[in-house]
């Protein structure tokens, strides 16, 4: 278990035990609804959520000159974080949880990055690497100016990124390890940090309404409602990878197994039935209606393990040489998203 100082708790408030922290400081939640001094913390919490819901990162008072050493400033930082969680729990809106967790993760990221990059202060580096190890089980070792992690750990975290710079090929790899700068090291765990914070919020017990905070909670509910996702419309056209696969089959050429898998799962997910799909494969050099029917039923989940298979991601299709990207693909990450426009 990490032992944190007050300044570290202010930087990484999600590591503090909420209940214990309040108890240590001698406060109860109810006081925050009425005490005018403590109300400052509530306002700060509200501000923190508002900033997060606007997709931005909250700027701490501890970053302001001369503030970082003042105890009450640090205390208010932690209070506002813990209260923000309480307020979000009171709204019951999951959109707020996601936005808040992401923004707080990005905020913590800047501190972790600073701590890692602080060549003169070994204890800060140690704390940052300890946090990363304790929370995400990634062992980071400092080697000269770089932070080194095993390739397998790198892959587990980087596979969710879509930017090409995160591909392993675009990293310095040597002897089973990836060499990262402090900012990349921290960026690697942003999502997990976000997940960690959101799971803390989700798992926190929902408090009963605190008298005096009703208006703030209602205000947040209104903000959250405005954030509900937009509708999408589909053009109905097939993506280039699917068109290519159909072309190959129509010409009677061989489409590799992976291509057939892609085509079948795509069409099944688009709502086509197995009997509608079978004829597409009849030109394949090795067409066997019995086998085709068996395999399609298997993919549709109507036979075998009843698992319904979904269409592979664009990234996977690229690796399988099945991607024929065009401008119209518009940065989608799965062929199923092709032609969908947000309105």
């Amino acid at each position: 278990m990490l032992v944190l100082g007050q300044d570290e708790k202010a930087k990484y408030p999600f590591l503090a035990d909420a209940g214990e922290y309040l108890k240590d400081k001698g406060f109860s939640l109810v006081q925050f609804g009425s005490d005018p001094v403590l109300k400052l913390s509530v306002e700060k919490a509200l501000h923190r959520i508002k900033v997060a819901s606007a997709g931005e990162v909250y700027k701490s008072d501890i970053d302001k000159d001369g503030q970082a050493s003042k105890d009450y400033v640090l205390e208010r930082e932690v209070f506002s974080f813990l209260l923000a969680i309480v307020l979000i729990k009171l709204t019951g809106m999951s959109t707020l949880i996601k936005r808040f967790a992401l923004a707080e993760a990005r905020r913590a990221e800047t501190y972790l990055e600073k701590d890692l990059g602080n060549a003169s202060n070994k204890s800060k580096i140690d704390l940052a690497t300890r946090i990363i190890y304790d929370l995400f089980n990634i062992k980071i070792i400092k080697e000269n100016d770089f932070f080194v992690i095993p390739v397998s750990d790198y892959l587990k975290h980087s596979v969710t990124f879509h930017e090409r710079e995160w591909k392993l090929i675009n990293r310095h790899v040597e002897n089973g390890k990836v060499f990262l700068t402090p900012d990349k090291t921290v960026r690697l765990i942003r999502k997990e940090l976000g997940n960690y914070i959101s799971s803390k919020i989700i798992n926190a017990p929902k408090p009963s309404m605190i008298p005096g905070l009703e208006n703030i909670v209602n205000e947040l509910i209104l903000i959250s409602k405005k954030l509900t996702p937009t509708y999408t419309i589909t053009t109905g056209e097939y993506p280039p990878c699917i068109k290519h696969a159909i072309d190959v089959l129509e010409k009677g050429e061989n489409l590799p197994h992976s291509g057939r898998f892609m085509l079948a799962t795509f069409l099944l997910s688009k709502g086509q039935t197995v009997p509608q799909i079978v004829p597409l494969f009849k030109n394949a050099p090795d067409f066997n209606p019995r086998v085709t029917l068996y395999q399609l039923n298997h993919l549709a989940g109507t036979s075998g393990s009843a698992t319904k298979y979904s269409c592979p991601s664009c990234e996977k299709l690229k690796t399988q040489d099945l991607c024929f990207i065009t401008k119209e693909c518009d940065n989608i990450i799965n062929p199923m998203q092709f032609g969908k426009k947000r309105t």
Partner: protein
Amino acid sequence: MNEIDIKFLEDSFKKYYFNHFDLITSPQRTSEREFGYQKFNSGMFRHISLKDNKELHLLFMQNIPSDVYCSNAYYAFPNSPMSEKDWKEADLIFDIDAKDLNLPCRKNHTISICNECNEISKDTNQCVKCNSTKLEKKSLPCKNCIDASKIEVNKLSNVLINDLGIDKENIHIYFSGNEGFHVYVYDSQFQQIGSKERSELVDYIMFRGAIPETFGMKKFKPNRSLFPDFNQKGWNGRFSKYIFGSKSKRSKIISELLDSGYPSFQKTLDDVSKNIGVKIDPNVTMDIHRIFRLPGSINSKSGLTKILCTNLTKFDPYTDACFLNDDPVEILANCPIEFKLKNKKFGPYTNEKILVPTYAAVYMICKKLATIA
């Protein structure tokens, strides 16, 4: 395939299996693996679990399979349906196949068999007799194919050892029994990574998805001091060696690259990928549930054995992986291409009745280029 041919192949395979149990040893942690097999003219039997060598040998003797497979994965319940197997981890596996290397020699030894009229002709896109496009291609790989595959295996080993930190002892290279090699990596840090992560490893090994910045070319204000050098480790070093050729040319080529600009550099990277990237089959490495041909078993595409290569340079599959007997067999052969097995030349044959040793008869029948007379 007709009954008589199947009977002949099964008899030949059975003799091999009976006499070469020493070559068919069950893999480590046998009881955690899934086994599967095929018989001639039938589908796949899988989700089989075995305890040890004895049970494995029994499977061979009882079923006389055409092909036998074993999972690279380890499961808690290997004989349960896929979703209930409880996957634990999987060895990293690679397939290097001559057919994926786009070698110019391919057209000289590839044959098309028409699915409609069974006409056999040298590599074409259409049947010469009935114009059908439903053709089955068969290749009789040549020495060049094997040598080119060996180069890829060595490139792969280099990346595995130097970049990915794999111990040399944990890399096992097998001849696949047909046109290439299977490489296994045991006990590495990658045992527990999933399919997506393996797909990223594939891209790394194949040199795919590289961006100019990684190799020193910035989009704005490019700077020649950022370009990689020969002595660098990993892809930077390999890229330098390939693109600059020699140290004396480095400076001149960097100037050319800078002049051509960023988009052109991206194109260079994509082109280079085909040359310096290792040509592995991505689907095999990405698959964490694959049942992969069992070492020591015969590949029914050729009648040759999947066998461990202890000395890859000297390895000659057409002598070292050919274990079937020399008993003469009369066959009707229609094999338009010459081939060599156990240092003996065979073919070409045009619808000829000939007497050949069992191993050559099996080879041609497996390739669908002959039948028992």
